[in-house]
C-alpha cells in the first residue's frame, strides 16, 4: 500500500525503543509510587506545617520543565559531583521523583476522600491507626486515587520521551533516528505515535472502566 523502505528490522528497532520507554516508565512509576505513598501519608499525618519542606521540594518537580530537571540533574551528578552514573539511571531517578511529587498529592487526596465518619467507625471498633490505614483507608483511598494514578503513570510514560537528553534511546528518539536514515517523517511519526497510543490507550480505558465500576458500588 505504501511505497516505503521501512523494514522489519526498523520496526524491531522501534519496538526496542518502546521497550526502553516501558522500562524507564515502569521503574520510575514503581519507585515513584512507593515514595509518593510515603510522602503522601506523611504529609497527611503531620499536617501542612511540618510537611512544608517536603511539599516545597516535591513542588519543584512539578514547577520546572522535566527537560530542565533532566539536564540539571545530569549536569550536577556528572559535572559537579563527577559521579559515573549512566543516563538511564539519571532518567529513572529524575522520573521517580517527578512521579513521587504528583503521586504524593494523589495519595493525600485519596486519604482525604475517605469520610471521617468511616474512619471513626473503624477506630471505635478498636482498630488501631495502622489497622485503620491498612484495612479501611488503603482500600477506599485506592478507589479514589487509582484513576488519577493511572493518568499519572501514562503521563510519565509520555514524558519519558524527554529522556533523550541524557542519551537514552527511547521510543521517540528511535523514531527520529529512523527518520534520519529513511526520511519518511510522516509515516514514521505516525508509527511512533501509534506505538505510544497502543501502550497508552488500553491502560487509559482500564482506568475509565475501573472508575465506572467502583463508582457504582
Amino acid at each position, binding site marked *: 500500500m505504501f511505497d516505503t523502505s521501512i523494514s522489519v528490522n526498523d520496526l524491531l528497532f522501534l519496538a526496542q525503543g518502546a521497550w526502553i520507554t516501558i522500562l524507564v516508565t515502569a521503574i520510575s512509576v514503581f519507585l515513584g509510587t512507593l515514595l509518593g505513598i510515603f510522602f503522601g501519608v506523611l504529609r497527611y499525618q503531620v499536617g501542612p506545617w511540618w510537611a512544608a519542606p517536603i511539599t516545597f521540594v516535591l513542588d*519543584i518537580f*512539578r*514547577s*520546572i*520543565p*522535566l*527537560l*530542565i*530537571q533532566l*539536564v*540539571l540533574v545530569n*549536569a*550536577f551528578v556528572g*559535572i*559537579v*559531583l*563527577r559521579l559515573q552514573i549512566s543516563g538511564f539511571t539519571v532518567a529513572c531517578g529524575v522520573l521517580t521523583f517527578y512521579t513521587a511529587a504528583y503521586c504524593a498529592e494523589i495519595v493525600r487526596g485519596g486519604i482525604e476522600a475517605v469520610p471521617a465518619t468511616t474512619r471513626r467507625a473503624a477506630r471505635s471498633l478498636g482498630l488501631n491507626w495502622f489497622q485503620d490505614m491498612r484495612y479501611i483507608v488503603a482500600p477506599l483511598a485506592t478507589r479514589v486515587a487509582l484513576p488519577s494514578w493511572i493518568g499519572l503513570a*501514562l503521563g510519565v510514560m*509520555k*514524558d519519558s*520521551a*524527554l529522556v533523550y537528553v541524557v542519551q537514552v534511546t527511547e521510543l*521517540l528518539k528511535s523514531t527520529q533516528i529512523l527518520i534520519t536514515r529513511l526520511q519518511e*517523517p*510522516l509515516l514514521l*511519526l*505516525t508509527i*511512533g*505515535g501509534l506505538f*505510544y*497510543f497502543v501502550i*497508552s*490507550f488500553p491502560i*487509559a480505558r482500564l482506568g475509565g472502566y475501573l472508575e465506572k465500576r467502583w463508582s457504582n458500588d
Partner: protein
Amino acid sequence: MFSYTFQWNQALARLPQMLEGALVTMQVAIMSMVLGILIAIILTGFRLSGNKFLNAVAVTWIEIARNTPALFQIYMAHFGVASFGIHFSPFMSLLIGITFNNAGYLSENFRGALKAIPETQTRSARSLGMPPIMAFRTVVLPQMLRISFLPMTNQMVWAVLMTSLGVTVSMNADLYGVTQDLNALTFRTFELFAIAGVIFYIIVKVINLGARLIAARLFRY
C-alpha cells in the same frame, strides 16, 4: 567538596536575555490557553451534539492529545504537517502543538464538569422560560468554568512547562531555547539551566497565586 568551579557571574550576565525568553514563554502559554479553551468548548459541544461525525472528530482529537507525548504533538505540528506542504514558523508550530494538547485535556475536563452540574439546574432555567442557549450561557457555563478552574490552572502550568519542548522545532526565542543557545556558547550548563529552572519556578508560582486571586474575585459563592 566539588572539584567543579561554579561561575555564576558568567551565567547571571545573561539574565536579561533569559527574561526576554521568559516573556516569549508566557506569550505562547497564554495564547495557547485562550485558543485551547475556545477549542475545548467547541469539542465538548461536538461530543454532546449527538452527531456521529462531530463526535468522532472530537474523540479522535482528545484521544490523540491525551495518549501521545506533547513532544510528539509539537514535532508533528512542524515536520508532520509539512509533509502536506503546510509550513509553520517555529513559534506557530509550538503554539499549535501546545494548543492541540490543551484543547484535548481541557475538553475532557469540561465534560466532567458538565456531568457534575445537576440536571435540575438546566431544568430550572428552562422552566423559567429560557431558551436552551440562554440557559447554557447564563446558568451552566459559569458553573462549568468554576468547576474546571483548578484543572485549567494546572493546564496553564503545563502549557508553560511545555514551551521547553519548542527546541525540537528550532524555537529559540523562548526561555528554554535561549538557555540552550547560551549553553552552546558558554557551556555553563549547570549554572544556566539552574537559573532557567528558578525562572520557571517563579512563573509557575505566580500563575498559581494569580489563579487564586482570580478565583477569589470571580467565585464568591
